[in-house]
């Protein structure tokens, strides 16, 4: 039988287009766009004595949030995120480089060994650090047993402890993009550079670094931004000295019961995120390499 005029209608296909793209559009509009718009609206609202949201335009929330106390915490968050990102690069880059360029047969195993810890619940791993670092914890017990220290080291509930926890949680987001970028390095380029007389340091700065910069950038974004919101790390390890913006937001939605204030804080966090993403794009970052 002849299928006369088997038209391949690749254009103007409203029904297939609707069926395929419809569901994801619904999800994006109903569960992403509209909630965020509502948060923006709420940030300009206030609450009455029963903690109900009043739909009356006010700038009070924002006025409160530019006071000195809050600015201090924004600065602290950005500092913590910055140090965390830096440490992730300093540790993650050499590590990814060695693993990605190894000739060992166990390369895949080495890669999996990075990911396996992260299949254990992150909260309990952070709690493991608390157990390890506490005054009666493993580290102090071992150090005192070996007579390396007389008194227990006070390691917990400091800014440094929070940074340790953040680095621990976020370093895979640096290692994975770096691994992908480094694996794409063409070894012959490095050989050519050496052949032309460049010392290893020069080859690194002029050849390797530029070629892997995309990995560094996308890794940095995937570390810095979540760090600002990871309130549970500073809750468990930081003990109140190292709040990040996420802690402020969490407080307003739980004990503070001031949702509009929390919404305003979230908007501030979104603005910071947008600035960072713009910076990332300006430095040549590719949006498609995020999150894959």
């Amino acid at each position, binding site marked *: 039988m002849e299928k006369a005029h*088997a038209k*391949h209608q690749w254009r103007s296909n409203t029904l*297939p*287009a609707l*069926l*395929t*793209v419809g569901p*994801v*559009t619904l999800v*994006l*509009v109903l*569960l*992403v766009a*509209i*909630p965020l718009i*509502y*948060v923006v609206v709420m940030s300009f609202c206030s609450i009455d004595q029963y903690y109900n949201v009043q739909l009356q335009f006010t700038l009070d929330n924002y006025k409160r949030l530019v006071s000195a106390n809050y600015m201090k915490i924004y600065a602290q968050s950005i500092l913590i995120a910055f140090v965390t990102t830096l440490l992730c690069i300093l540790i993650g880059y050499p590590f990814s480089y*060695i*693993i990605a360029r190894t000739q060992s047969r166990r390369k*895949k195993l*080495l890669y*999996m060994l990075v990911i396996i*810890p*992260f*299949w254990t*619940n*992150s*909260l*309990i791993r*952070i*709690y*493991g*650090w608390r*157990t*390890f670092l*506490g005054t*009666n914890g493993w580290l102090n017990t071992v150090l005192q047993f070996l007579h390396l220290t007389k008194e227990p080291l006070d390691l917990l509930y400091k800014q440094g402890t929070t940074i340790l926890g953040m680095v*621990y949680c976020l370093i895979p987001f640096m290692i994975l993009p770096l691994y992908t970028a480094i694996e794409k390095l063409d070894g012959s380029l490095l050989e050519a550079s050496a052949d032309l007389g460049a010392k290893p340091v020069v080859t690194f700065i002029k050849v390797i670094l530029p070629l892997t910069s995309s990995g560094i950038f996308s890794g940095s974004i995937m570390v810095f*931004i*979540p760090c*600002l*919101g*990871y*309130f*549970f790390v500073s809750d468990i390890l930081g003990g109140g000295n190292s709040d990040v913006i*996420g802690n402020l*937001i*969490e407080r307003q*939605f739980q004990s503070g019961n001031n*949702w509009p204030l*929390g*919404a305003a804080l979230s908007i501030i*966090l*979104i603005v910071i*995120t947008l600035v960072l*993403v713009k910076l990332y794009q300006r430095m040549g970052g590719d*949006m498609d390499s*995020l*999150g*894959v």
Partner: protein
Amino acid sequence: MSRNSKRKAKKARNGIFCGLVYLFLFLPISVIVVNSTNATTSKPYLSWKGFTLDWYVKLFDNTQLLQSFGNTMIIAVVSTLLATIIGTIGAVGIYRYHFRGKGIINGLLYIPVVIPEIVLGISLLTIFSKVNIPRGMLTLILAHVTFSVPFVIFNVRARLSGYDKSIEEASMDLGANRLTTFMRITLPVLAPGIAGGALLAFTLSIDDVIISYFVNGQTKTYPLKVMESIKSGVAPDVNALSTLILIATILLVVLTQSGIFSKNKEHS
């Protein structure tokens, strides 16, 4: 020879460095595993009272903990399934058809990926509260679908970019309709991307803390139950459950990996 010994020294140095990093990564894991065998019975369960495997048995008496784990599994499976379907057909549709608002959709997709999870969490909380949807399993599943769909789409899209449409045209020429072509030609090509996206969605769902924290209502998921335990002292049965989960995932990885290893052997 000096060059050989230089190379060996470099290899040793690299090995030690990587070893230290792995030590760092696995340190808390070992704390968890060891503490799961701690015979302590009183809060905060921190001092070592001897080795025992009792907690692995007592674990199954802790109905609340097991139920929270069950909730997490249900949410992960359902949300991954939904996100994979919505994401796969969405990715195909976006790639193939041109329509107004395509740019907006593409832009919106990045939001759940780039934005801090806490913002997603509270925005969903506020909208669920406004529309009077009671917080529980339903809101948890909706939330998990929301952050999973973009990851599925990105993974499937990666497979689509190198894709040759002419196979589909050939299939249609041979008389297959659009649906058959999709199921028999397109899907198999996309399969690795779909699998990758689904795996990522599942992993993210199981460990989700921040978003679940805001939209869960009274329902406890496994990470949230752990969070609760941390406030009162983490009993070794929680450690035991985490150890069991870890062993299960390692076994899964080993099984899938050994399949790949044997394939490689055939080729070489």
